[in-house]
């Protein structure tokens, strides 16, 4: 009996010293204290084989062993828990370090102008618009005449243009695509047009001879200025947040009548007035208006039956507002430390 007790105690000490996880410890508990087959449990059953006078002695010895095993397992359990709490690997002894950097092909980042363009596009797609595109190399007809911008009119001044030859130019806005699309389609028309545009402006922190615009056009029966306001206000709230307020100011564009510029409540100060909004609480975001009857006519659409609205915005401008970028040239310089910052 003494030998058996000694053997159990030795096996236990060996096992407990190697235990380094809760799982192993649980196995040890079952092996020694398990209700059915535990070594210590079983030895109690063998108490009947010893002589009656030795029974109290061995009863005490077995109980001492049971106490020892229970105590040691508890101690070990606390020790392991402590290690887990401290973040030390349960197998730290083998030196596997889960904190080493991952093996991964880092997913790259889209250009901030792409992110903003895609965000704006998806907001309009949700409202039923379709994306279409058109050529950057245009003719005077599509860039000017069809859009009711006569030759030699001062309104062309804001549309100064790069020419490739007498007929061809680099479009100064995305609006020519309106005409190209209308020529082939009858209403309902509901499109947005992202793309590059060109104006001979000297480059500085806020001007670039190439930049990106996004144009929209919606034509159907009974479309009014109220719908223009509705769609563009929803857009502003989706892009800048539900609390964004909008303001529409009368303006002049040759291709719309009436025309309006849309301001949003300053996205920095919320309208209280700050440096970004020049202390008036509003920031101009886009130009818009009801499509001019002459433009509809150029697109073979009967202005007596149909009406519609159009709008246009600069993607760089919105990206600069959204991310607080103060120099437009950063977009085209493509320092990867700049480009890689943006993820939404």
């Amino acid at each position, binding site marked *: 009996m003494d030998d058996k007790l000694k053997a159990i105690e030795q096996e236990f000490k060996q096992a407990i010293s190697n235990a380094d996880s809760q799982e192993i410890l649980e196995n040890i508990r079952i092996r020694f204290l398990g209700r059915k087959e535990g070594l210590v449990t079983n030895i109690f059953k063998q108490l009947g084989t010893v002589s009656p006078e030795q029974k109290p002695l061995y009863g005490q010895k077995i109980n001492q062993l049971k106490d020892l095993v229970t105590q040691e397992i508890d101690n070990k359990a606390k020790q392991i828990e402590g290690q887990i709490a401290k973040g030390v690997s349960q197998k730290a002894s083998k030196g596997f370090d889960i904190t080493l950097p*991952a093996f*991964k*092909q880092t*997913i*790259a*980042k*889209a*250009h901030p102008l*792409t992110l903003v363009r*895609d965000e704006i596009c998806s907001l309009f*797609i949700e*409202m*039923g618009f*379709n*994306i279409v*595109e058109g*050529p*950057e*190399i245009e003719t005077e007809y599509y860039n000017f005449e069809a859009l009711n911008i006569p030759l*030699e*009119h*001062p*309104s062309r001044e804001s549309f100064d243009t*790069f*020419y*490739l*030859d007498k007929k061809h130019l*680099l479009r100064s806005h995305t609006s020519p695509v309106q005409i190209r699309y209308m020529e082939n389609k009858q209403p309902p028309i509901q499109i947005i047009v992202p793309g*590059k545009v060109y104006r*001979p402006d*000297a480059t500085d922190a806020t001007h670039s*001879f*190439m930049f990106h615009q996004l144009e929209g056009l919606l034509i*159907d029966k*009974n479309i*009014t*200025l*109220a*719908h223009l*306001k*509705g*769609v563009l206000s929803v857009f502003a709230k989706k892009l800048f947040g539900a609390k964004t307020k909008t303001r*529409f*100011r*009368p*303006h*002049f564009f040759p291709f719309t*009548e*009436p025309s*309006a510029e849309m301001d949003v409540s300053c996205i920095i100060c919320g309208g209280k007035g700050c440096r970004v909004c020049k202390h008036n609480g509003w920031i101009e975001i886009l130009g818009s208006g*009801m499509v*001019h*009857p002459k433009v509809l006519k150029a697109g073979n659409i009967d202005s007596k039956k149909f*009406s519609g609205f159009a709008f246009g915005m600069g993607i760089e401008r919105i990206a600069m507002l959204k991310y607080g970028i103060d120099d437009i040239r950063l*977009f*085209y310089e*493509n*320092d*990867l*430390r700049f480009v890689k910052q943006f993820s939404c």
Partner: protein
Amino acid sequence: MKVSLTWLEQYIDIKIPIKTLVDKLTDAGLEVGAVEKVNNDTVFEIEITSNRPDWLSLLGIAREVAAVTGTRKIIQPDALPQMNKSSKQKKSYSIEIQDKAACPRYVGRLIRDVQIAPSQENIKTYLENIGSRLINNAADITNYCLYETGQPMHVFDFDKIKGAKIIVRRAKKGETITTIDGVNRKLDESILVIADAEKPIAIAGIMGGLDTEVTDFTKNILLESAYFDPVTIRRGSRKLGLSTESNYRFERKVDTGNIVFASCRAAYLLQDICKGKVESFYLDVNYLKDKVRKVDIQVEHVERLIGIKVSTSKIKSILLPLGFKVANAKKKNTLTVTVPSFRTDVSIEEDLIEEIARVEGFSSIIESLPPIQAHINSACTDQYMAKTKISNLLLGQGINEIITLTLMSTKNLDDAFIPADKRVILINPLSIEQEALRTSLLPSTLKVINTNLNRKVKDLKVFEIGNIYEKATNKFLETESVAIALTGNAYQNWKDHNRKVSFYDLKGIVENVLDSFGVDGNCKLEAKVLAYFDPEQSAVITVDNKVIAELGKVNKKVTKNYDISEPVYFAQLNIADIVSLQRTAFRYNSVPKYPSVNRDIALVVDKLISAQSALDIIKQVAGALAVKIELFDLYTGDQVPDNKKSLAFSIEYQSSTATLTEEEVSKVHNNVQDALLSKLGASLR
């Protein structure tokens, strides 16, 4: 335009706070920018759109203030009466208009015995507050009237006009004039001038001449008030590179109904301030046929366009203060509106509806969303979708997106060895640095690589999606393309490092793009020497002999031109081609039921034999049984002769109809082996 508030108050009694006025003007389309305090005065900067030349005057702005603030009356400034111009008096000068199209109306008026001196206090302060330069009392009066009435006028020293003759004509080639700013200017037939009997004495509508300028010694003044053709003035101003407050207004059309009044107003001030004696008649040479413009407006059309109902009486009360006359038309619910001469922008019903919306306030229009229309249009075109897909695929492979400027110098193109034919050059570039549209995405990509490497940003993997442009016969082409460029180390981590990117990294990325559109099967990679690539590593991908992509190691001389000292790998793919070749219909293959067997083979072949030729032989001999053929090793070195290399392939054999026996596999594999040895002159390793 700068507007002095105290000056404006000469014409209208403004009873509302400045802040309210600013908001009301802005809401009505006169966007007020900066508001400044200048010498006890408030000066607004108002942005005036090019369709509203009538707002380029204080009287015009006062009219607008009256409309948006209620019915307050305009205070008309004092002027001489508009006298009967026909007079029996002997005329002391003459006016002859030679170009009636360019100058359809010219009003001249003589004022004698003026006293020229600095301007009196009120005119001086007003002009100073808006930053206008002071000259003398006579010249200042014309400037004062320009801001007040919107009509630019000019005063000549009458005694210096040779022959007492005003001739409005085109300049002759070779003629010159020294303008009042002291600059001697060359003139030609495109420029309209005011001349005397001998020579030009003013550039019409733009700037007066120095010789006939009113000075302290001037006794008699000839006052000019005219209408000049906007296009002629604009062209002249552009040609001379000279822009003034005067031509700014003529280009936008001055009010034809205001020419005589402005003259009467200036004459009144010249009499009052310069103590001149105004001749009791004036000359008015008038070829203008000013038609009265009438526009009908249907009341229900207002709601149809702006979405709110506006009553007939409301329409009247909006249009009247703006200077329109409104009468009921014969047609029911229709008004006939007579447009005042200063509203050159109003010609159709929509223009009037805008006036109504503007004065009513855009804020009074309640927002609503258009009714939903189910339609069959796609959210975007196939090509747009393809671009998004390519972009996502490349981003997922760790390649960053860049967007570069499409205009560059021809040197940028030359430096990248881009062929000189088909280039698109601007005829009016801002500078030679941006005179050419890119015919390849390579130059701007190299510039980005150079910028980053200079700033110690290394191991670059970038792509750009954008157009390249070329000149064809009688037209220009733009081709949407994707460029991919790699430099430095490949994907690395703390265990695997310092592997440089190679042609094969680039090839893998290009293949991934093509695979994702299902065009891989038809593609052929062909060696083709392109000027901007290293001749050894220069290739194109063709489908039915059409090049859809090019890829290679950028020629060392090119990278050197761009100050880049490490190898750059560059590919450019045509997106429209990929879209047109993409697999549209697909049926699945059943998953193999029977096990496959792998066999390896290692060959020693001549160095010049391509891996592809071995692959082709294996495919041809093993046919459908070889389901996968992989090159798993390429060896050159001590174990093989100098001019040889070893290629090792792993071939997976599998049948779709039965389990292959050992004999069957060995038979086909031996055939493969024999074919490789005989056709490639290879030996087994």
